[in-house]
């Protein structure tokens, strides 16, 4: 009995995913070349293409690990996480997380963190559009409005904590410089990733700024944020600190213009 279209596709896919050769019986003899060599064009192209997708999304991780080691991580990744998305853009979404648990790199936490940072930048790059909240939006608020003011983070923002100097490794690689030696940190580095003027960016946050940002994102109002800063600074300096941080957030486009709020 001849194979149905469904059988053919299942066998062809098995040949690509698992090097299963049962499809060969359905493939026509070719005058110029062995059938398995021709089938191998597809088998080879599969891995090469997926590695290319990951290389596009994680160029610095690839440079840091080196071509061969990177390709090995990619192969391990696609063998356990074959693509299930119509868009190549989303194929690598789980790669950074995969690296965290990838045994051969267990000693290289910075590599997984580097990939995490690249993933966050990719996500910020084409995150949903939203109008940014500006200084001018807040210009007409009365002193009574301020304490109860709350904020919405721009959809492109994302917070990361680095337990290694992966951010410095990223910075060196982005300038095509030799990256610093990996370091485990006593205290994590707090990062915010976002899109400003169309570019995906990140910067470090001081511990107090990170704390009030995380609170602001949860909906804590400006008055309470000032009080929280009072645990880091003399109470009378806290409102000015808060105002300075807010100004920086506004000019960097960290916040969304929320038409129902402000």
């Amino acid at each position, binding site marked *: 009995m001849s194979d149905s279209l469904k059988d053919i*596709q299942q066998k062809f896919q098995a040949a690509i995913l698992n090097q299963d050769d049962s499809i060969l019986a359905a493939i026509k003899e*070719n005058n110029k070349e062995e059938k398995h*060599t021709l089938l191998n064009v597809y088998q080879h192209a599969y891995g090469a293409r997926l590695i290319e997708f990951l290389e596009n999304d994680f160029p610095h991780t690839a440079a840091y690990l080196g071509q061969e080691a990177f390709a090995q991580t990619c192969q391990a990744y696609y063998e356990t996480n074959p693509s299930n998305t119509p868009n190549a853009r989303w194929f690598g979404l789980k790669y950074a997380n995969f690296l965290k648990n990838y045994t051969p790199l267990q000693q290289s936490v910075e590599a997984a963190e580097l990939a995490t940072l690249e993933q966050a930048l990719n996500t910020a790059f084409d*995150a949903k559009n939203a109008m940014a909240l500006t200084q001018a939006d807040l210009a007409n608020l009365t002193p009574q409005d301020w304490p109860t003011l709350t904020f919405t983070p721009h959809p492109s923002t994302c917070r990361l904590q680095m337990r290694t100097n992966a951010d410095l490794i990223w910075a060196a690689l982005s300038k095509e410089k030799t990256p610093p030696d990996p370091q485990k940190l006593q205290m994590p580095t707090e990062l915010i990733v976002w899109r400003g003027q169309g570019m995906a960016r990140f910067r470090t946050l001081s511990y107090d700024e990170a704390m009030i940002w995380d609170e602001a994102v949860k909906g804590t109002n400006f008055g309470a944020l000032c009080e929280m800063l009072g645990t880091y600074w003399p109470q009378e300096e806290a409102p000015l600190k808060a105002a300075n941080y807010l100004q920086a957030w506004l000019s960097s486009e960290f916040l969304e213009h929320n038409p129902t709020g402000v």
Partner: protein
Amino acid sequence: MSPSSNERPPFIGFGLGLRPTHYKDILENNPPIDWFEIISENFMVPGGKPLAILDQIVERYPVVMHGVSLSIASTQPLDMEYLKGLKTLAKRTDPKWISDHLCWTGVHGINLHDLLPFPYTQEALEHIVERVNIVQDYLGHPFTLENVSSYVSFNQSEMTEWEFIAELTKRTGCWLLLDVNNVYVSSFNHDFDAIEFINGIPQDRVVQFHMAGHSDHETYIVDTHDAPVRDEVWDLYRACLKRFGPVSTIIERDDNIPPLNEILPELEKVRQIAHEVHPKLKPVAA
């Protein structure tokens, strides 16, 4: 109003596949390119720069949407979420037509991200006819399918690739995107006559040509799109122009992409040959 799927799309001249490395040059210099073919998936993202750039391109140039993940020949159900994404993008770009490939890309929910071959059987034909009808009804734009390059063929095939394509377009009214390089590549790989292929394609259904380069491995040819168009493919292009009349054409370069000013002479050649074969052909209005 968007054109309905059975209305023949217009001749829009000679264009390029839009690639990110050329964005800056295009937006700064408005090069004399009649139109762009965009890769649909590149713009099926939530927001950010790619869509902002696309909006600017669409303001200045006609575009056509070209996808790679429809998987029209797959035996797994059509991905309606994906189709919805295409439709959303079509609202944004008002494409002259929407195309994808006559192939499958995976089963069991897996996308192999390749344009895979299948046997040309009645069973496959009926399956694909049904799906093309669904897709073109849903999209509401002229829908176009492209012949792919292939490296293997199947014992089971009951007809040739061109007979299959001819029957498919007859039964669904879908339009055809003839990749001239793919015809050449497949004719070499499967030992058929490329002219017989094009003579088997209905004259009035082809609305677009793709021109591209390939890699020769002596015993087989791979459709790599990483090099200039080869002489044999230029010859075949002339033959296609004779058979199908003036047809909107792009150069499709996916790898090893040179700066725009190095591709433009090749596009000029595409245009010149069309004018040689069809001396009365008028340039499309800018």
